[in-house]
């Protein structure tokens, strides 16, 4: 059995045990006077690289001490420190030592609780305190010594194993360093055996896939979930290519795109499209570009002017390509004017200031806010509302949704925003991806349901600890292992 994880209660007990051990010196007999000898050490310590991990774990096994289980209360596991770690350990010790000396010196002068009385001290006394402390520190500096090769400095305590256990998984190692390991047995009287050490240093090896399915932090389960989800999306895309048309729920905000563009046409005013204030590496900006391509195509058909100020130059370049191609598709390549797609500034509020001014001056008849927005959302939407534009917003920034909802005519909320491209293009493949997305939703709902059921059952069966803990463990496994 591998025991990298221990229950909290046991951990507490062991910690208490270890701390008491730390205060006891090696090889000394216990205080109660009972004469007993330390247990014989475990033997044949072997370190093997842990399979299928991301190169941070080593598996340690040993043969049990011959006194196990009669005279063994626990095993202590250590690993060697790297040179840097040893340095740090010594530096820490030095600091602790100096601090202790300084505190002791001041206490000698002012008694305990001197800190509280600091405010009462006169300037003279304060100077005195400082002198005393710095002298103490100097003294401590010279007296402190530590042997970098001492076992205490070289080996770092990692954890414990119970009697009868002969395995331990060491985690969080550096894949570039080599380590040796040490295991000691502790007797019932807390006396310790000599340590058994691995002879050769071992470096954890990075495997090609992090396939730990039963511990948290691994990416095994995530990869499964992603495979299922992506598979569902791809499946539905492929199916949609040949299958019958997929129906989508009406989204008023997207139905209104033509209306907004039409309004701009009739009023002879420009359409404003703001693709958020994030760069192209934000998926929302990409989604905005896909929507822009549809809107600009409509605008081209209606012969309306579409203006796209951007906060990033890469977005500007992309938007230009997108709009140009849309004009081409609409059969009006001459009508395309790249000067209407321009860069303003990366600075959030500079961008907003520009947009507000421009909106008040040019009074666009339709405003689209698609992409990632922050505090500027309300400023933009209120200004647009004031100049009487039809406004359609779409964002995946939950914090900004309320502002858009209050001030815009239509708001694409979260996933609607991502569904927009599919909706507007109406292409079966894209609509298929929406169906795949629904599969993801079903998985989420299913997992939520299982989780809730397990924890509810655990709570309901609390009268029966065995059963309850089974449910709880299952729930924990779901929560901590599968879903991390």
């Amino acid at each position, binding site marked *: 059995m591998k025991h990298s994880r221990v229950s909290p209660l046991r951990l507490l007990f062991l910690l208490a045990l270890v701390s008491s051990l730390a205060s006891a010196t090696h090889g000394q007999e216990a205080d109660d006077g009972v004469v007993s000898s330390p247990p014989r050490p475990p033997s044949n310590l072997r370190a093997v690289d842990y399979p299928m991990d991301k190169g941070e774990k080593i598996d340690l096994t040993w043969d049990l001490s011959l006194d196990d289980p009669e005279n063994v209360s626990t095993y202590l596991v250590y690993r060697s420190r790297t040179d840097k770690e040893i340095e740090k350990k010594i530096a820490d010790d030095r600091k602790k030592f100096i601090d202790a000396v300084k505190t002791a010196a001041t206490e000698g002068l002012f008694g305990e609780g001197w800190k509280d009385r600091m405010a009462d001290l006169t300037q003279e006394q304060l100077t005195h305190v400082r002198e005393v402390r710095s002298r103490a520190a100097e003294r401590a500096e010279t007296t402190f010594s530590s042997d970098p090769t001492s076992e205490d400095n070289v080996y770092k305590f990692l954890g414990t194993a119970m009697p009868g256990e002969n395995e331990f998984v060491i985690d969080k190692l550096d894949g570039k360093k080599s380590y040796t390991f040490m295991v000691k047995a502790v007797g019932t009287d807390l006396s310790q055996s000599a340590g058994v050490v691995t002879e050769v240093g071992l470096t954890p090896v990075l495997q*090609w896939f992090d396939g730990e399915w039963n511990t948290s932090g691994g990416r095994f389960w995530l990869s499964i979930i992603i495979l299922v989800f992506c598979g569902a999306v791809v499946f539905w895309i492929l199916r949609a290519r040949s299958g019958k048309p997929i129906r989508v729920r009406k989204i008023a905000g997207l139905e209104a795109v033509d209306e907004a563009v039409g309004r701009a046409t009739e009023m002879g005013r420009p359409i404003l499209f703001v693709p958020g204030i994030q760069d192209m590496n934000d998926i929302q900006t990409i989604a905005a570009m896909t929507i822009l391509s549809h809107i600009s195509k409509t605008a081209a058909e209606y012969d309306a002017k579409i203006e796209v100020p951007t906060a990033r130059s890469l977005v500007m370049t992309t938007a230009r390509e997108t709009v140009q191609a849309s004009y081409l*598709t609409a059969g009006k390549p001459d009508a395309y004017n790249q000067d209407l797609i321009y860069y303003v500034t990366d600075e959030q509020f500079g961008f907003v200031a520009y947009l507000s001014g421009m909106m008040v001056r040019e009074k666009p008849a339709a405003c689209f806010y698609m992409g990632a927005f922050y505090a500027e959302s309300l400023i933009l939407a209120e200004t647009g509302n004031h100049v009487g534009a039809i406004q359609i917003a779409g964002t995946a920034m939950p914090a900004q949704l309320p502002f858009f909802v209050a001030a815009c005519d239509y708001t694409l909320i979260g996933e609607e925003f991502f569904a927009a491209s599919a909706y507007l293009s109406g292409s079966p493949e894209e609509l298929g991806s929406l169906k795949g997305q629904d599969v993801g939703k079903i998985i989420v709902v299913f997992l939520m349901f299982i989780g809730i059921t397990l924890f509810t059952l655990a709570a309901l069966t609390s009268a029966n600890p065995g059963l309850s803990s089974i449910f709880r463990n299952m729930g924990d496994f779901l929560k901590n292992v599968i879903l991390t």
Partner: protein
Amino acid sequence: MKRTVPLIITFLGGVVLIIAYFIPYTQAWGEKAAVFFDVLAAIAFVLGGGNLLKNHLKKVSDRVAGWGYSVICLVAFLVTLTVGLGKIGVNPNTQFSNYAWSGVYDQVGSPFWWLYEYGFKPLTATMFAILAFYVASAAFRAFRAKNFEAILLLGTAFIILLGRTYAGVVLTGFIPDDSAFSGLKLENFTVYIMQVFNTAGNRAIMIGIALGVASTSLKVLLGVDRSYLGSGGD
């Protein structure tokens, strides 16, 4: 061809990032990809600056309505650029005192710092502060108890508005702290609403968004949705 190459790059980039996440050995690849993007984005700064200049110069030369603003914009842009890039008035770093430009561009007291402290900072703070006014006018206009949902939202808004200030403490101060009803004290109730109802709602939206993000990403990677490259859906 014009579309195939970007599609291939998108696909490869995406695949590398995904693989990098799951296969520890390739983890560095993902970071490399991110660096590539940073490099591109940095180069794009120049592009943006050039476009800005061109745009506003054109506005000025065409004397379009409001060209005066463009003049201000150009002057501000050029002055800031010169002062910042030239590190004018900046003392060299003490460690590299031989290099005139080794100082920090926004050193206290330098012209750039001055521009920042007395120009940029108050201006952006002003823009942000406008929010307070807009929130008030939007609330006045939009918070109408039109239907049940609206009434619910309205009630919650009042609780939160009061609970987030001392008014909440005063209004429900009569409820003793240790009584069974202490949860009804506005300040506690506010926290409860935020942590329970609001969190639940937000989680739902976030799950939807996350799935949307994943499926959109997948569409883009697989080239199903090419409209951002300007296919116009056709």
